[in-house]
């Protein structure tokens, strides 16, 4: 079959959007966090906890959308931990993020054993879908409702970050916290807000995976997607539309990888799988358009420090 066949193009497009959806959601979270000055390499762990919570609550309540809300709440709770450790106690943000990633793997495995009495995988749940009377229902079923949610949130994030006073404050504490502090912006509050939003969005990204694209939780099911989302943040130059484009590109690479055989593509799938990471390194090095992080991202803020 040729790569130019219409059905192949359509199926590539749909699987690109499917792969990109959890990435966009988590990447938007990463943008909020990093723009406020807190590096969040914990996206991976938060997604994993979101994915588990969504399935657990869907299973026990029978409502997948309630599971989605719970996933966001769980994401906020874990992000709060990251916030307390790295904002209040000024711990190294990368250390704290690493701890969350280790915690997420252990905690979800533990809770899986505790609540479902089995190891490895949860029973199946009904995934979160939109009502059938909505337009574009067939397409929505294929790309999942989360693709629409992600699209709306991209626009919303852009508006909030670049066209509201709140967004200006978030960006200010990420670029120059001292200056922001002197004009009366509460650096700590803004950073907590950024981190908590990242928790909600990464949790949502995890839910998009477990009760959107799939219908159960398996151990460590995020499998590096949180780090690809982090790559999308960087490759997209810390902007929502940039992250969307990066996620779609990475999603496309993933789609090519899964359908390489059908298309007759000769590139080993491993090289497609590693392409997001290589592209991100190239972007950081300035080979593919220079990416420069928010100036104060990664630095704990201490009042009264010279």
């Amino acid at each position: 079959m040729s790569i130019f066949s219409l059905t192949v193009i359509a199926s590539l497009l749909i699987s690109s959007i499917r792969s990109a959806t959890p990435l966009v959601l988590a990447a938007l979270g990463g943008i909020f966090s990093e723009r406020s000055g807190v590096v969040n390499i914990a996206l991976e762990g938060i997604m994993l906890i979101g994915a588990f919570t969504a399935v657990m609550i869907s299973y026990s309540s029978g409502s997948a959308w309630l599971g989605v809300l719970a996933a966001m709440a769980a994401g906020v709770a874990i992000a709060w931990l990251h916030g307390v450790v790295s904002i209040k106690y000024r711990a190294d943000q990368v250390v704290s993020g690493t701890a969350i990633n280790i915690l997420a793997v252990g905690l979800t495995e533990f809770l899986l054993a505790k609540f479902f009495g089995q190891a490895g995988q949860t029973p199946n749940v009904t995934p979160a879908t939109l009502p059938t009377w909505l337009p574009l229902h067939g397409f929505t079923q294929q790309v999942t409702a989360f693709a629409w949610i992600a699209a709306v949130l991209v626009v919303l994030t852009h508006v909030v970050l670049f066209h509201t006073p709140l967004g200006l404050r978030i960006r200010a504490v990420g670029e120059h916290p001292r200056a922001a502090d002197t004009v009366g912006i509460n650096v700590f509050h803004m950073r907590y807000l950024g981190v908590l939003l990242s928790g909600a969005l990464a949790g949502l990204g995890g839910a998009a995976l477990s009760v959107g694209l799939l219908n159960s939780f398996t151990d460590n099911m995020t499998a590096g997607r949180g780090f690809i989302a982090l790559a999308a943040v960087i490759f997209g130059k810390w902007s929502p539309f940039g992250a969307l484009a990066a996620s779609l590109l990475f999603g496309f690479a993933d789609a090519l990888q899964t359908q390489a055989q059908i298309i007759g593509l000769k590139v080993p799938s491993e090289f497609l799988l590693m392409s997001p990471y290589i592209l991100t390194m190239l972007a950081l090095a300035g080979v593919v358009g220079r990416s420069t992080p928010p100036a104060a991202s990664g630095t704990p803020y201490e009042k009264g420090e010279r």
Partner: protein
Amino acid sequence: MSDRKAKRLFTGSIPLPTFEGFLVPILAVVAALLVGVLFILWVGKDPILAYKALWRVTFGSTRNTLETLVDTVPLIFTGLSVALAFRCGLFNIGGEGQYLVGSLAAAVAGYALPGLPAVVHIPLVLLAGFAAGGLWAALPGWLKARFGIHEVINTIMMNYISLYFVHWLVIAHLKDPTNLSQRTPKILESAVLPNLLQNTRFHLGFFVALLVALGVYFLLWRTIAGYEIRAVGLAPAAAEYGGISVARNIILAMVLSGGLAGLAGAVQVAGISLAYYDGAGFVGYGFNGIAVALLGRNHPAGVLVGALLFGALGRGGVRGMQAIADVPKSMIGVVQAAIIFFIAAEGLFRVLVPRLRQRRQASRGPGPAGGTGGEGAPHSGTATEGGAGR
């Protein structure tokens, strides 16, 4: 550079044996084990029984103790790897990837070089692992030194690149055709780290690890190269002014750090697995190495203790907690994460322990506000401040 820092640098004193240096890690471990108690109670099991089981399978007998030491070996290397980078103000989070490339390189050196005596072959295998890990880490080191790009992102990216790259190498080129499982051919007899005690896995690699720990200590505190690495870690601008090349030392520290992580892989291949087995993901030694370095205050002696603890927790979780006390082994992951949290947020203990609070106030100076508590902990922008980039 503050007086305190200058003193630390010039006297070459070991920063470990202070009240503060010991207390925070110990409190962190105790607090994390208490978190473990809560989780054990939550699944309705007896925490005393569970911890007794953990002790029994880790240190309960000579044989178990030796097996625990074997599990400690890779963590000593990855802990040293992270600690050495920390000392230069760098955060090498790429241990997982460096471990993988080191393992594969060691396996290839182990099976592809027939006819060598063991005294030549074993060092060659270890060197192959060290070189592969070091080269893998050289790129993020160079990118940091040359362009000031933070090494954290690049080392994370390279973890995943190595995961897929190594996987591809094994299935496409290096797979043992005579075997069904996804692994390289077995290494030759002459490449195997000799087993020292029958009926255990206790092999020479343990003493290699001790020797390397001693070597890292000697390098950092007894040589000019080590002095330069630490100087760059403590105050890059001052180091540059004093004639020390920040860029050169950043690359050197990353290569050594990556080499140590690669060595971890090499020792596991030459001592335990005897081939490179292609797994689905990371082994975890790299990430746990971060915790080990934090626990050990980035000092080789501390790393040995931290590695012993994490090695014991890993072994005790599976063979003790799960097998004997019926507590999910994943509980150990929670305890390990809690240890990192408690050390990272050492401010928490400052609130609880008045003496630490006083010390904190006394030491508050114009130094970096790196909160990890480790001496020479990284803080962002060290390289650019040192004039290496931009």
